[in-house]
């Protein structure tokens, strides 16, 4: 069976004022349909760059990315939707109008897209907030609107770049549970970037640990356990220790470079 996403030996270099920086080197990663694949690693390891390549926002210098067997040449909102760390809501649009954004670009009629967005409000927990502007919403709500905007275009793939990174711990835990519920119902393929060990272990079917710059894949951890996971079980605690020891070395290296 062919993978839904195939990252094939990609590399990326950036020019900065202090010289060239190699963000990614020779990264290959297959992601199967229905997976919840999490990328974790030290800051600046190219996780977001890799996500950008799958989403068509970043062009690789080496290698290529295939989605559904076809090379990615730019953003393709029929196959991939993205959620960013900064939710990036349009402040002049209400919750419903933000959720409708992608459908509007695809030329879906007003009635149809309003129906889709309204139906999403329930699962998003925003039933009473459809007519509110982003400034009237909490941080967690805003991120749910951004997730709603990605879900509205109903793509098989959803990319999430540290979607809960800016939220407080409690909100973050609840949002994780909520996302898990959504993902298990929709069965979309998710590629998720995070710094949180807890998030990675609680949500993913697979965790990919990346090295310090230049980013490469250090190890891959498969997590076939059922959901919801008992995070305090000896099995999960042991996995957490394994994962942390792998990431710790890389984080130390990344810190030493600064």
């Amino acid at each position, binding site marked *: 069976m062919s993978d839904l996403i195939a990252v094939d030996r990609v590399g990326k270099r950036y020019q900065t004022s202090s010289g060239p920086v190699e963000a990614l080197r020779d990264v290959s990663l297959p992601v199967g349909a229905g997976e919840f694949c999490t990328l974790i690693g030290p800051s600046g390891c190219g996780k977001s760059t890799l996500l950008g390549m799958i989403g068509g926002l970043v062009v690789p210098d080496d290698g290529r990315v295939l989605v559904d067997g076809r090379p990615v040449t730019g953003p393709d909102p029929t196959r991939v939707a993205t959620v960013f760390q900064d939710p990036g809501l349009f402040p002049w649009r209400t919750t419903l109008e933000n959720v409708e*954004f992608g459908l509007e670009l695809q030329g879906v009629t007003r009635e149809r897209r309003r129906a889709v967005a309204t139906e999403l409000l329930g699962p998003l927990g925003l039933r009473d907030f459809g007519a509110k502007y982003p400034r009237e919403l909490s941080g967690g709500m805003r991120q749910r609107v951004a997730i709603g905007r990605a879900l509205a275009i109903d793509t098989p793939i959803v990319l999430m770049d540290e979607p809960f990174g800016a939220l407080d711990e409690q909100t973050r835990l609840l949002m994780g549970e909520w996302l898990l519920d959504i993902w298990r119902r929709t069965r979309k393929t998710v590629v998720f970037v995070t710094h949180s060990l807890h998030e990675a272990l609680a949500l993913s079917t697979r965790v990919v640990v990346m090295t310090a710059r230049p980013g490469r894949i250090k190890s891959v951890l498969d997590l076939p356990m059922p959901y919801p996971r008992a995070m305090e079980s000896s099995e999960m605690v042991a996995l957490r220790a394994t994962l942390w020891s792998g990431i710790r070395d890389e984080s130390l290296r990344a810190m030493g470079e600064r």
Partner: protein
Amino acid sequence: MTRVVALRAAILVASLAAWEIGARAANPLLYVPPSAVVPALGRLLTLDSYPDLPASLLLTLREIVIAYALAIAAGLGVGAALGLNRLAGRVYGPIVAALYAVPAVVWYPSLMLFFGLDAASKIAFGFLLGFFPITLAVLAGIRQVSPHLIAVARAFGARPTAVFVKVMMPAMLFTLVGGLRTGLALAVIGVIVGEILGSKAGMGTLINHAYGLFRTSDYVALVCVTLVLIVGSDAVASLVERRARRWTD
């Protein structure tokens, strides 16, 4: 709120009274008291003193509308061209800003030479005055659009035109509406000043006529009518501005 209105009314009444008393004490030919303006306004509005008032008002209004429409079109076009093209913006942006700082009235004599004494030179002058604030507002507006929002729109498949219409325009609406409002005020000033400086028809010509013949009360009445025109146009603009700001504060 009612206190604000009351205080405002009080100062209005007080200044009208001071004006009345002061004008009666001085030469009434030069200093018209309000009590003389009211009948003059009556004569003006019944078309007694100036029968061609409607035609003049219409002409001035038409000049303003054309000048403003041209200023909007050119301002949006030039502003977008300079704002979206980094090189063009760096080369020409400062020139536009510098020209805006020149007192525009120095151009008026050459505009009269180019376009004659008829409506064309007034339209050109109103256009010239209205053009700069609109252009600069578009330039400033484009600069303040968040690159992240543009990236988000692109991720959802927006092409350059959609990015401009659905992200840049609303994001800079604030600044843009402010510039459009300033542009309207300046276009109105341009047309009326143009008419006063030299013309054959329009409100400015009537004002010039009344003032030249020492028909001071008629002159003040004409100024009042012109004032209504200007205040009215600004009220419309501020209404639009408030609507555009619905999603903030």
